[in-house]
Structures are given as structure tokens and as C-alpha cells.
């Protein structure tokens, strides 16, 4: 089975990939504010973890670094760990699916972080997040985050 990966050059399956990044500093998580474009809720705002699609032949780790920089301006080396893997049905293509990976990194509270002011970001206490209006599927990421117990360094 596995040899097909080594043998085939064009081994990209018809699968889309997406990444989400959960950044924790102290007891808080980083969320982004975004506007809703759907007509019935147009103008309203909701909160989301930084996330985005994996482009072309990019790997998921580089996609996480890129998305975090694009959406928050944060750069540097992060000790990413995968804290969630999801195979979701692709609603736009029958019998195809999306691989969603959520990365987690915990930053020490003293680490200074440069965040673009243009992007509307905010650090939320974990307990307060559930009270916000969240983007679809964010609850699953939070549930997964709560169940993950990474040992402290």
C-alpha cells in the first residue's frame, strides 16, 4: 500500500486540505474577528481561530506558519503540535473529502508577540470563548483542545 506513495509522482489525491492554529499564551487563546458575508447575517461579526486552505503542493506545517503570519502577522519559530485531525466531507464534490489539521502551540506569557493592528485579534480566556459568536466548526476545535493534554515542558 505505502509503496504507491514512493512510486507515484502524481500522488495527490482529490483531497483538499485546511489548517487551523490554536495559539495559547498563559491562560488565553488567540482569536480573530471576521465579518460575515452571508446575506442573512451580513454585517455581523464572529470569532475564529486563524485558519486557511493549504495551497498547491504545500505541506500542512508550512501552511500553518503562512496562515498565522498572513492573518496575525506573527512570525518566528513555534513549537507546533497537531492537536486535531479531521476528515470532513467536501460539500462541493461528491465522494471527496477535506483533511483538516489543527495545530496547537503554547507560548510563554513573557514572549513578546508582534501582531498586525489591521487584523482584529484578541486574547480570550478559555472559559469566555464559548460565550462568543463563533465561526462554524470552531466548537469542535475547542472541544478537541480541551481534551488534549500536552505535557508541560
Amino acid at each position, binding site marked *: *500500500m*505505502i*509503496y*504507491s*506513495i*514512493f512510486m507515484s509522482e502524481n*500522488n495527490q*489525491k482529490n*483531497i483538499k*486540505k485546511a489548517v487551523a492554529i490554536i495559539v495559547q499564551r498563559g491562560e488565553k487563546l488567540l482569536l480573530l474577528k471576521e465579518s460575515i458575508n452571508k446575506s442573512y447575517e451580513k454585517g455581523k461579526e464572529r470569532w475564529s481561530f486563524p485558519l486557511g486552505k493549504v495551497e498547491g*503542493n504545500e*505541506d*500542512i*506545517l*508550512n501552511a500553518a506558519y503562512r496562515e498565522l503570519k498572513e492573518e496575525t502577522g506573527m512570525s518566528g*519559530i*513555534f*513549537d*507546533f*503540535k*497537531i*492537536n*486535531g*485531525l*479531521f*476528515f*470532513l466531507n467536501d460539500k462541493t464534490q461528491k465522494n471527496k473529502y477535506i*483533511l483538516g489539521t489543527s*495545530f496547537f502551540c503554547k507560548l510563554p506569557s513573557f514572549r513578546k508577540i508582534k501582531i498586525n493592528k489591521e487584523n482584529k485579534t484578541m486574547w480570550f480566556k478559555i472559559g469566555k470563548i464559548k460565550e462568543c459568536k463563533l465561526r462554524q466548526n470552531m466548537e*469542535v476545535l475547542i472541544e*478537541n483542545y480541551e*481534551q*488534549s*493534554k500536552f505535557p508541560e515542558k
Partner: protein
Amino acid sequence: MNSQNFQKNNQFFNFENIFQRRIKKFLFYYLTLFKAPNFLGKTINDGKNKFRSGLTFLLSENKKEGIAIAAAAELTWAGIIILDDIGDFSEIRRGSLAAWKKYGLLKASHAALLSFQIAEHILMENKLDELIDLLRKNTSETILAQIEQADFDFSIQSNKVLNNYLRKTSLGRWAIDAVINENKSLPEKEKSILRVFNQLVGVAAQIKNDLDDFKKNRGYESYLKDIQSKIINYPLSLFFEKALKNDKQYLIKKYWGRNNLNEKEVVELLEKYKAISDSEERTEILLEEALKILNLIKDKKFKKIFSNWVKSF
């Protein structure tokens, strides 16, 4: 006479206490052996009077057998009430949150199935074959009743199974993590890359291991072991996610905990919903992603060791 004095003066209650201590000790050994979650022990402990199992013990001629039957009864009872709460969507059990509400549907149903499995093991050790048949029949019927009552299917659970694999330290992943962490010459970014690689390969290896359970000629262990042990592995979770109710019921009724296995039929049933081929494809996707990440590291030694490791699958 107040209730305290009543208990003090009543021989049965005194005897019941002795029984309770014995069964607790007996069960503790098996719950530890099977690595049962703590809440299963708590559920058993919460059933305070233990009247039925106490009576079983008192009535049995052979006390060694008696304690085994009583323990199996306690375990079955615990499993049934956990499943009952799921079936009825009861959120409260004895004043506190029901197991499924507190620990999630998957953990609770696993614990319930594990309790049946331990009960079966205890009866098997004591060669109580007639009771094993009775237990299998009753527990299978209970599970079926849950499905009929509350449409208790394992839908949208395959991602939960996947994430359980991600959290589980399996197949020596911890050892590889330790090697990565202890290697002082390796830059932090490379360590981080290797840890992510290790996570992806670990999950893929676990699914590969699940898939082996459906292959008869793999040369070791019995095949379809997971189905018989009522373990929901990844291909099974995909089946329970997609299959029609009738097919789910058929699989459980015919093969759950049974020895009369027909590998071809099981595989065909799972393949009807592409549970095996989808699992294979997903394993490849995870490994493909892992290899891409491995290419990010500069350390040639690690790159060679780990790519050979993946090739050995």
C-alpha cells in the same frame, strides 16, 4: 431502632460488608488489568446495595465461582446502566452527571462495552461457559435495544476515533519523541518538525494496525479480533458512520462477541460502505503528508532513518 443500629445488629448487612470488600478487591484487580477508565469503577461502586450480586454470592456453593459470578453481574449491571443512560438521553445518574454526559458518548460506550468484555473474561477464567452464552446474548440484546430505542449509532464518531489515536501513545511514539527531545545538536525547529511527523505517522500506523485486523493471512494473532472484543477501530467507526441501521444491527447481532466469524462477509459488509478502502486511502494521505514534512528537515541522518521507517510499513 434507627437504621444504624439495624445494620449493626443485622447479620446479613455485616456479611454484605464482607462481600463488598471482597468484590471490590476482586474487581479492582480486573479493572486495573484491563486499564478500565476510573468512572467504570465509580459506576460499580455507586450501586450501593449490591443486593443481587450479594445474593448470588450467598447462594453459590463454590465461593470462588460465586465471587466471579457476582463480579460479572456487577460489571454487566454497570455496562447496562451506562448504555441505558445513553439510550434514554438521561443526563443525571444518582445526582451527578451521567457517564456519557460527563465523558462523552464514545468514552462512555467504550467503557460499557469494556465492562461486558471484562465480565466475559472473568467467566471464561472460571470456565462458566453456560453463563458466557447467557451474558453474550443479554449484552448483545441490550446494545440492540439501545440502537432501536435511541438510534444509538456511532455517527460522526470516526474523527473522534482518529483524535483518540492522536492522543494515545502508541507504537513506541513516546520513545521517538524522547530521542528527538534528548538530541541536543538538533535545532528546535527540526525537533518541532520531527514531532509533527511522528504524530502523523503514529496515527497512520494505528489505522494500518486496525486494517490488519481484517486480513486473515497476516501470520500472527487472530483476525477480526477487534470486532469480537467490541472495539470500535477506525474502519469500523467509518462503517458505523455511514452504514444503514439494518446493516449496523446485522453486524452487531451476528459478530459482536461471537466466534462464528465469516471474514468474507464482514469485509464485504464493511466494503459496501468503503470503510476499509477509505481507511487505506486515508492512511496513505497521512503518510504522504508526513513524508512531505520530513523533507523539511536538514539533518540527513534523521531523514534517512525516518523515511526508511515509513517504507517498512
